[in-house]
C-alpha cells in the first residue's frame, strides 16, 4: 500500500481520508453497508445502554437526566425479597452447573468414544432440550412435578430442588455440545500411550482425558451457569411462591411498573453475565490456540 501511495502522490493528497478508491469487492468500505451496520448497533445497544445509564439517574421519572446517584443500587440492595431471589438464583446456578458439567462430560465422552446400538436416537434425544420451545419444556416440568407430588414445603435450599432439576435438564446437553467439540481435537494416541504404560481406565481418564477436556468443561460450565442465571420461562413454571428467582422477581416488578430500581438490579445481572461470557470466550479461544500449537 505504501508503495502505491508513493507512486501516486496527487490522489493521496486530494483524498487523504480515503487512501484508495473503493474497489468493487470492498463491500465493508461502502457507506450504505457501514450505515446499516451502525444503525443495527444503535438498535441493539441503545435500549440496553439507556437502561444502564438511567439506573444511575437521580429521578424516578427515568427519562430526564437529573444527576448521578447510587441510591437505586442501595435501594435494590435493601430490598430483601430481591436479595433473596438473587441468592436463590445463584444457588440454583451453582448447583445445576456442577451437575450439568458432570452429566455433559459423560455424554460427550460416551458419544465421542463408543459405537453402540441406539446411538443416533440418543444423540437426537440429547438435542431435544436445545430445540424444543421453552414454553413446552416449562409446562412439561410443571406437570411432572405436580404429578409425582414433589414436596414444595422443604427447607432452603431443598425447596429449590425442582428448579435445579429443570435447569440441569436444559443445560447439560449444551455442556455436552461444547465438550464434544473440544474432544474432537483429542489425539487418541495419548490415551493409548497412557494405557500401554500401565495406567488403568480410571487413571487414564483422570490424568489424560480430564486435563485435556478442562477448557471445554470450564467453558461449558460457564455457559450452563449463564443459561441457568438467565432462564425465565422454565423457572416461571417450576417455581413456587417461596422459590422466586431473580428473573422471576424482576418479571413481577416489571409487570408492576418501570422503576430505576429494576434498572439497577438488571444492570447488576448484565454485568455478571457479561463477565462470565467474556471469561468463557477467553478460555475457549485460549484452548483453541493451544490446540493449534499442539497440532
Amino acid at each position: 500500500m505504501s508503495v502505491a501511495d508513493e507512486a501516486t502522490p496527487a490522489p493521496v493528497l486530494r483524498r487523504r481520508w480515503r487512501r484508495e478508491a473503493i474497489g468493487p469487492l470492498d463491500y465493508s468500505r461502502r457507506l450504505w453497508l457501514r450505515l446499516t451496520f451502525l444503525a443495527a448497533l444503535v438498535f441493539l445497544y441503545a435500549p440496553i445502554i439507556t437502561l444502564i445509564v438511567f439506573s444511575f439517574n437521580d429521578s424516578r421519572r427515568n427519562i430526564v437526566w437529573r444527576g448521578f446517584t447510587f441510591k437505586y443500587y442501595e435501594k435494590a440492595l435493601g430490598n430483601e425479597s430481591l436479595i433473596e431471589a438473587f441468592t436463590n438464583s445463584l444457588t440454583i446456578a451453582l448447583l445445576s452447573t456442577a451437575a450439568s458439567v458432570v452429566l455433559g462430560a459423560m455424554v460427550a465422552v460416551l458419544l465421542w468414544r463408543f459405537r453402540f446400538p441406539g446411538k443416533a436416537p440418543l444423540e437426537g434425544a440429547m438435542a431435544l432440550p436445545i430445540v424444543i420451545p421453552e414454553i413446552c419444556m416449562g409446562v412439561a416440568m410443571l406437570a411432572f412435578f405436580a404429578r409425582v407430588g414433589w414436596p414444595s414445603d422443604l427447607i432452603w435450599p431443598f425447596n429449590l430442588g425442582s428448579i435445579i432439576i429443570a435447569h440441569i435438564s436444559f443445560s447439560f446437553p449444551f455442556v455436552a455440545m461444547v465438550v464434544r467439540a473440544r474432544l474432537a481435537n483429542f489425539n487418541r494416541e495419548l490415551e493409548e500411550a497412557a494405557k500401554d504404560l500401565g495406567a488403568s481406565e480410571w487413571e487414564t481418564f483422570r490424568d489424560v482425558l480430564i486435563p485435556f477436556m478442562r477448557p471445554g468443561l470450564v467453558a461449558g460450565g460457564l455457559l450452563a451457569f449463564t443459561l441457568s442465571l438467565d432462564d425465565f420461562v422454565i423457572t416461571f413454571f417450576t417455581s413456587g411462591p417461596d422459590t422466586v428467582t431473580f428473573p422471576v422477581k424482576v418479571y413481577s416488578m416489571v409487570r408492576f411498573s418501570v422503576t430505576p430500581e429494576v434498572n439497577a438490579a438488571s444492570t447488576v445481572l448484565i454485568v455478571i453475565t457479561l463477565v462470565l461470557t467474556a471469561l468463557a470466550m477467553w478460555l475457549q479461544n485460549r484452548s483453541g490456540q493451544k490446540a493449534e500449537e499442539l497440532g
Partner: protein
Amino acid sequence: MESWRRNPLVFWVINLPPSLWLLFFFLIPLGLIWIFSFGEKRGVVDIEITWTLANYLRAMDPLYLQIFAKSLWFTAITTLLCLAVGFPIAFGISFAPAKWKPWLLLAIILPFWTNLLIRTYALIAVLRTRGYVNFTLEWFWDQGNWLLALLGLGQYQLLGAQFEALPLLYNNFAVVFGLVYVHLPFTVLPLYAALERMDSSYIEASLDLGAGQFRTFFTVVVPLAKAGIISAVIITFIPALGSFLTPDLLGGTDSQMIANVIERQFKSANDWPFGAALSFILMYATFFALALRALLARGSSSMEAA
C-alpha cells in the same frame, strides 16, 4: 471410536447417569404432557385420560386458529425483517478486514448474552408513551412550534394543538419490534458462516463479465448463500414462534401468541389437557421446521456436489 462391547463397564458407567436423567427429567415429563393432551379435565386437578381428540379439535376453533395464524404471521414478518437487516450486516462483516471480523461479530452477538427479560424490559422504556422515542418526538414538536412562532405562524397550530404520543407499546407493532430485537443475532450468525465460506472470485467474475451489483447479488450471492439463508430462517423462526415473554410484556390484548395461550391454560385457566394439546401442536410445528431444514439442506448440498 470403539465398540461398547470392548469396555462394557466404562460404557455403562458413563451412559446410565445422563441417559436416565434425560429419561426421567425430560422425556417422561414430555410424555406426560403428551398423554395429558388426550385427557379430559375432571375437577380442579383431576385429569382423566380418555384418549379423546377433543383438545386438538378445540384448537381448531376459529378463536385459536386465529391466534395460530397471528403467531405465524408475527413470526414470518420477524424472520423477513431479521433477514433483510441481517443479510447486509453479515455481508459487510464477511468482507471486513480479517482482524476486525471477530470484533464486529462479537458486537452483534453480545446483546444475545444479555438476559431476555432485561432486553424486553429495556424496550418498554424505549417504546412506552412516556418513553425515549416519544420524548424525542415531543422535543421535535416543541422545537417545531417554536420555529413556527418565530416565523409568525404560531397561532395556526400547524403541528396540532397538543403533542400526541405515538402508541408504540402494547400493540402488534411492539411485539414484532421486540421479536426482531431479540432474534437478530440468531439470523446473522448462520448467514455470516455461509458468506464467510463463499469464494469471492465468483462475485468478481460476475462483475467483470458486466453484471451490475444488484444482478450479481441476486444471481450469484443469494444462490451461493442459500444453505446459510435456510439455516438463518429456521433458526430465527423456531424460537420466535414459541416466544412467550415478548408478546406477554410488549403486546396488547389482541397480540397474544400461542405460548401466551398455553401459559394461560396452565396458570390461570387451569385447563391442562387443552394447554398440553396446544404445546404439542407448537412442538410439531417446530419439528416440521427442523425437518424442512434438514430436507432443504440435503437438497442444496446435493446440488453443490453436482
